């Protein structure tokens, strides 16, 4: 002990130890998470290795084949199944985002039940099923109807449903699918006399003429159509591409992809198609007795008066009619979509089918698929019993559809739902319909339940569950089996005790029991059985009664009436997907709006109201009023205001409720009982509400900067012929992207590159400039990408894929308004074209992985650098957040984590374990899916070979429905990316000006010289 201080060494050490310990523990991190190893290792689960399950998408009636990637028992990604004949690898945003319904934090987690005017209370499945069975029994015995309302179902569910309802005395199964157009089915029946539905083959069509049908968005089989459509937009071996016309009152995504877009007055489709029919009839083959019907159809047609006020002139139609005759049998007329769900829609659809028949397209570009006698639709059912008091209905079971949301307020459904004895809802979310229910049953998603179906004639698909149900949920099949087997009903439909067994039984019945077990495994592994797929449609003839259905007097619409158009979008479909944060945040391709609805209106109409962009507009119809921020658009007919479908939920979940408005609620019921998508506007007024419409695109014009480029077809052919004469760097005059700048422009930014005499907007490989510095070397791999703008439709599926694959956070409306959205890939849409092709095109923009990247030298800490595989890599751990790289990135594709973003449980279960989650204060950007590159390289290395062409696919490329994105090794001179980089259509954005040498080559869109001239 020190005598002076009275403080000995031991005490000193104790205090030092204690303070150090306290300081250390005080700064320790939160309680560490426990990692619990498997006690018994499941056979199929290898930690760190993904398992892929073939499945079927259930997001729309199409039924595309999917592959579900699971990691450690959790589904983390959905992609298209390349082997599936319908979608062939592509998958739309809706399908990809279905994961966010699986992990929806607002899902119904257990059966709920309530008495009138009371809150829901959880019950067991047995109790809930028992109650429902008892109620059905009682109601059936009392002679009251049991309604089973589902979405469009096929396969074993259909069989089971039919079995179930046939065992009851008074059961009625009804279907309710928002975009399934009864009018089109009725028209097909009227024209062909059979229950057929037209299916379109864009790959065979040289000339596509669309009337309102949004076939690249929601109409029919959009992924399949996109794939076929895009294939024909790229010059084939003969150097030809298809030509596309589109007639619609507003510029939809589909319309923006047409070579010629005619903005027409609402309800004028019938008159236009009828005129075309009259103009082509004389020279067309008109097989199978279609001539007589067509002649009858055009009797009394006065072209001048018919076309008055439609927005197209007779001369324009003459040109089109000539082309139709020229391409007879190779043309395709497609009518449908929202703008046809008005009064004249039925006629327009019939004329369109007849025109196809007259031109000999049926059997070539249009095939007819028999859909047999489908169940009645809910709307038709309600329409037929307009005067009923509803006391004849005892029980209503709603499964997988939300009629309260998708039917107008004036529909009789809500009254029925509230007055019925027992309303049962089998649903994933407590949606608007479920809010009226007495019993709510938690539905399984397609990731948790078995299902099967028929995607196309002969294409039988299976959906196997890819993970255990998250909650106490069941699919419709299992629920029906449980109901039927319940002691109160005891319907004895099937011996099977589970839906899986039932499906197996059905498949065994259909495909034969010999060797079934082995085949079954193949079916499940492959996602179904399409060995007997039927390509051709059914034989057809024109119905003998068709002629008599056309009245000779053309109906004249009342003049200047303003209409509200509810239109579907590629993002939300029928609105059931609105609670997915990805879809809310991915910009609408046309307006780039996020997190909300808008009213599209013509500037002249807006000026008449004395309003401007940014105001909130109130639209009154007879069904009520809705209000949303104004989106001014020159590309909508003055007589229409349009509001997108899918938003405006009152009860779906935290991301959907109160976001946007639901235009369907103010729509009238059409003559056939279905929901019209067009309503007369009674009043437009400025709303006092203040709401901002958040759009992500900064500027609508590309200012002639050549970010998007196009080339005329003839021009391209000319240059292809002269290709061998010149070495490289030949000029192709660009169309739409005017030349600017004089000689020598670009020198002030160049790092001393030699040739300053080229047009910066020329296509084809750039002349190799003299470089002052040593260039990057890449020994084995140099990853590159090419994006074919001729194929790209702007559907934004790549954006969704990127969000899902790379754990890109969703930031919400407030931060989007501040420009803080995190998307690594951006769809740029430029309105620079002529009136008939306003959108020149879409440019998917992601990190260009420049060989000479401006972002790399400016980082003071080497957090971003050039890898020897040509990747511009980002080291999150090293980043201190100076954001200098972001400023110096000429493409503005670097996104900064301004905050810490997180997902509420269980949405975070979707996160890809292969990709780091980023924290606040670091920069991030597209990595070319480096995790996939590494995985592919590891596989190749294990097998002792180099990575093969096409083996590695980034998420965007893999999901692209149009196959617009190609990824590969630029060092491999046989690869497609290498060929594309040397293509006469190829160009690199800003490369000429900045010498950035991007790894992404864009291939200019090909346009018909005649159609896209300004």
């Amino acid at each position: 002990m020190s005598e002076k201080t009275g403080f000995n060494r031991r005490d000193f050490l104790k205090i030092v130890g204690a303070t150090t310990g306290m300081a250390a523990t005080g700064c320790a991190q939160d309680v560490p998470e426990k990692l619990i190893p498997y006690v018994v290792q499941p056979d199929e689960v290898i930690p760190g290795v993904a398992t892929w399950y073939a499945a079927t998408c259930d997001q729309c009636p199409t039924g595309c084949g999917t592959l579900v990637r699971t990691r450690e028992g959790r589904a983390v990604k959905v992609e298209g199944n390349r082997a599936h004949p319908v979608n062939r690898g592509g998958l739309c945003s809706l399908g990809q985002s279905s994961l966010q319904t699986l992990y929806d934090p607002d899902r119904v987690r257990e059966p709920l039940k309530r008495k009138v005017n009371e809150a829901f209370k959880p019950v067991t499945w047995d109790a809930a099923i028992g109650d429902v069975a008892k109620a059905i029994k009682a109601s059936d015995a009392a002679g009251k109807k049991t309604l089973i309302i589902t979405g469009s179902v096929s396969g074993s569910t259909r069989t089971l449903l039919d079995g179930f309802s046939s065992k009851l005395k008074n059961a009625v199964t009804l279907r309710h699918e928002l975009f399934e157009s009864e009018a089109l089915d009725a028209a097909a029946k009227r024209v062909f006399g059979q229950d057929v539905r037209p299916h379109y083959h864009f790959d065979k069509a040289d000339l596509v003429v669309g009337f309102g049908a949004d076939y690249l968005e929601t109409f029919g089989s959009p992924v399949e159509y996109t794939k076929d459509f895009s294939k024909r937009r790229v010059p084939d071996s003969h150097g030809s591409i298809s030509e596309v016309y589109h007639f619609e009152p507003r510029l939809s995504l589909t319309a923006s992809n047409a070579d010629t877009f005619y903005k027409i007055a609402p309800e004028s489709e019938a008159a236009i198609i009828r005129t075309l029919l009259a103009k082509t009839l004389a020279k067309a083959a008109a097989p199978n007795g279609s001539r007589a019907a067509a002649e009858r159809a055009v009797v009394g047609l006065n072209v001048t008066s018919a076309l008055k006020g439609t927005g197209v002139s007779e001369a324009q139609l003459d040109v089109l009619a000539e082309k139709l005759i020229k391409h007879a049998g190779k043309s395709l007329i497609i009518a449908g979509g929202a703008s046809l769900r008005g009064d004249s829609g039925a006629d327009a659809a019939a004329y369109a089918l007849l025109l196809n028949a007259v031109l000999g397209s049926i059997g070539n570009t249009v095939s007819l698929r028999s859909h047999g006698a489908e169940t009645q639709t809910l709307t038709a059912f309600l329409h037929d019993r307009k005067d009923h008091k509803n006391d004849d209905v005892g029980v209503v079971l709603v499964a997988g559809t939300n009629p309260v949301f998708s039917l107008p307020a004036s529909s009789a459904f809500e009254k029925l739902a509230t007055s019925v004895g027992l309303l049962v809802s089998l649903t994933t979310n407590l949606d608007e319909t479920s809010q009226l229910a007495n019993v709510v049953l938690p539905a399984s998603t397609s990731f948790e339940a078995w299902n099967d179906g028929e995607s196309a004639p002969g294409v039988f698909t299976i959906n196997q569950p890819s993970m255990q149900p998250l909650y106490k949920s069941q699919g419709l099949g299992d629920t029906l089996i449980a109901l039927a087997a319940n002691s109160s009903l005891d319907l004895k439909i099937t011996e099977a005790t589970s839906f899986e067994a039932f499906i197996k039984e059905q498949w065994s019945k259909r495909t034969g029991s010999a060797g079934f077990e082995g085949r079954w495994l193949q079916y499940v592994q492959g996602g179904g059985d399409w060995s007997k797929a039927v390509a051709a449609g059914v034989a057809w003839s024109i119905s003998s009664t068709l002629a008599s259905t056309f009245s000779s007097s053309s109906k004249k619409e009342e003049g200047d009436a303003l209409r509200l158009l509810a239109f579907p979008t590629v993002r939300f479909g029928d609105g059931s997907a609105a609670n997915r944060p990805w879809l809310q945040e991915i910009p609408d391709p046309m307006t780039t709006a996020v997190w909300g609805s808008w009213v599209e209106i013509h500037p002249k109409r807006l000026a008449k109201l004395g309003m401007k962009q940014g105001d909130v507009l109130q639209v009154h119809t007879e069904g009520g009023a809705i209000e949303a921020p104004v989106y001014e658009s020159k590309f909508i007919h003055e007589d229409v205001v349009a509001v997108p479908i899918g938003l405006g939920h009152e009860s779906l979940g935290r991301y959907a409720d109160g976001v946007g408005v639901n235009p369907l609620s103010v729509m009238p019921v059409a003559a056939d009982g279905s929901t019209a998508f067009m309503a007369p506007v009674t009043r437009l007024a400025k709303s006092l509400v203040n709401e901002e419409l958040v759009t992500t695109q900064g500027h609508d014009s590309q200012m002639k900067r050549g970010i998007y480029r196009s080339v005329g077809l003839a021009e391209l052919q000319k240059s292809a012929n002269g290709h061998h004469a010149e070495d490289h760097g030949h000029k192709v005059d660009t169309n739409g992207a005017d030349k600017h700048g004089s000689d020598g422009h670009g020198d002030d930014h160049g790092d001393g590159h030699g040739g300053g005499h080229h047009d910066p907007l020329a296509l084809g490989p750039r002349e190799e400039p003299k470089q002052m510095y040593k260039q990057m070397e890449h020994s084995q791999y140099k990853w590159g990408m090419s994006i074919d703008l001729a194929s790209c439709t702007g559907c934004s599926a790549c954006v969704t894929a990127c969000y899902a694959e790379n754990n890109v956070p969703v930031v919400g409306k407030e931060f989007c308004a501040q420009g803080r959205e995190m998307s690594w890939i951006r769809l740029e849409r430029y309105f620079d074209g002529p009136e008939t092709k306003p959108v020149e095109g879409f440019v998917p923009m992601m990190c260009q992985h420049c060989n000479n990247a401006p972002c790399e030298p400016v980082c003071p800490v080497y957090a971003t650098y050039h890898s020897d595989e040509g990747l511009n890599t980002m080291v999150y751990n090293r980043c201190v957040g100076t954001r200098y790289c972001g400023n110096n990135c000429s493409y503005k594709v670097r996104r900064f984590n301004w905050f810490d973003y997180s997902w509420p449980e269980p949405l975070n279960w979707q996160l890809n374990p292969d990709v780091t989650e980023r924290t606040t204060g670091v920069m991030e950007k597209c990595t070319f899916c480096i995790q996939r590159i590494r995985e592919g390289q590891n596989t190749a290395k294990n097998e002792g070979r180099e990575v093969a062409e096409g083996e590695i696919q980034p998420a965007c490329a893999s999901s692209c429905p149009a196959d617009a994105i190609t990824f590969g090794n630029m060092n491999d001179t046989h690869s497609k990316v290498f060929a594309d980089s040397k293509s006469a259509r190829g160009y690199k954005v800003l490369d000429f000006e900045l010498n950035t040498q991007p790894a992404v080559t864009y291939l200019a869109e090909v346009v018909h010289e005649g159609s896209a001239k300004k």
Partner: protein
Amino acid sequence: MSSPGAITVDYKTINDDILRTLEPPTVKWLLLWLSAICCLCVGAYCWVYQILNGIGVAGITHPIMWGVYITDFVFWVGIAHSGTLISAVLFLFRAKWRVPIYRIAEAMTVFAVMTAGLFPIIHLGRPANFYWLLPYPNQRYLWVNFKSPLLWDVFAVSTYLTVSVLFFIIGLIPDIAAARDKATGVRKIIYTLTSLGWRGSHKQWRHYMAAYGFFAALATPLVLSVHSVVSWDFAMSNVPGWHTTIFPPYFVAGAIFSGLAMVMTITIPMRSAFSLEKYLTIWHYEKMSQLIMFTSGIVTYAYATEFFIAWYSQNPYEQYQFWFRPFGYLAPAFWTMVFCNCVAPLTLWWKKCRTNIAWLFVLSIIINIGMWFERFNIIVQSLTVEFIPAAWGPYNLSWIEAGITLGSFGWFFFWLLMFIKLFPSFSLTEIKEIAEVGPQESH
């Protein structure tokens, strides 16, 4: 006979007058100091709030990833500029009019660099890792990127700070000794320590003058280098509106311009508060005004050159940028700059204005506002409209940025006011050197 601006008082009066600034604080001083502390607290609160919530609480966003913080940084580095110019460059040129102002200008330099140095850290996404920008040996072999202008910045600013502080301290030694001789109590101890045993011997004076001259020579190139390097943060990038060779001289001229204005802003109130009209005469202010006129001319010429080059280059990106500045949505910021930096200083062509102290005070504040907006225009406007139109976007100025900017003024004036009360703000020795009276007693 006395030359213009001559100081004609005896050494004792000089001692008394200058050292009067060190007397116990008045209520006015205390109020000023407290308000500086209040501003500082607002800034500190905002910074803590930003650290806790993420840098996104500031207005910087995509695509404008640098904003008010870097504007503040450049602004304060600019302010820091004229201190060394006045003390070192004008010393070497033997410009007499620098004498009464150089001390306060040096103090201003030191505190402004201290303020400026905070901003690169404040603006970092992960401020706790700021030291990663320093090349220090570490086990992970992580090194810094010497190609990055930001790293040059680190060296330029830290070198400038080091040299300015040393130069400042050396100049202070004889004056502290003078204060020491008068002081009592704690002050006596402080001054005794900080005067480093100064006795005023001839040998000490000889060494002192040599050291002072040496540091003046050392500091002079830094006057040019520091702001040139800061300008390279912009000029070395490829952003239209930044990528230009004119930036280094343009920035240096702008910095002298704003620094002189700041010297005026500070000395004019001090002059009247401490009755120093004898030392800071109208003549001195006229000299400063002339330099301001000159540098205002340079910046105006630089602005014009940018527009000329944008037109002459036929570079569409550059052209759009310079169309956007006067006519875009941030046009008010541009026209504020033009008014403050180009138009308002024109008044100095009239002697009446040059010699009107009240107008000079107002003008000095106008110029400082203008120079802040100059940097704001360069940074924010350029980033708003770059190459890809789809990615353009507006800036959302936030209260946090305003608070931190306010806090930076609080921080600056907190130190400056303390300095005024603790050390002689005007150089006793040099004033005595030029005083036009015969040698008397005392130092």
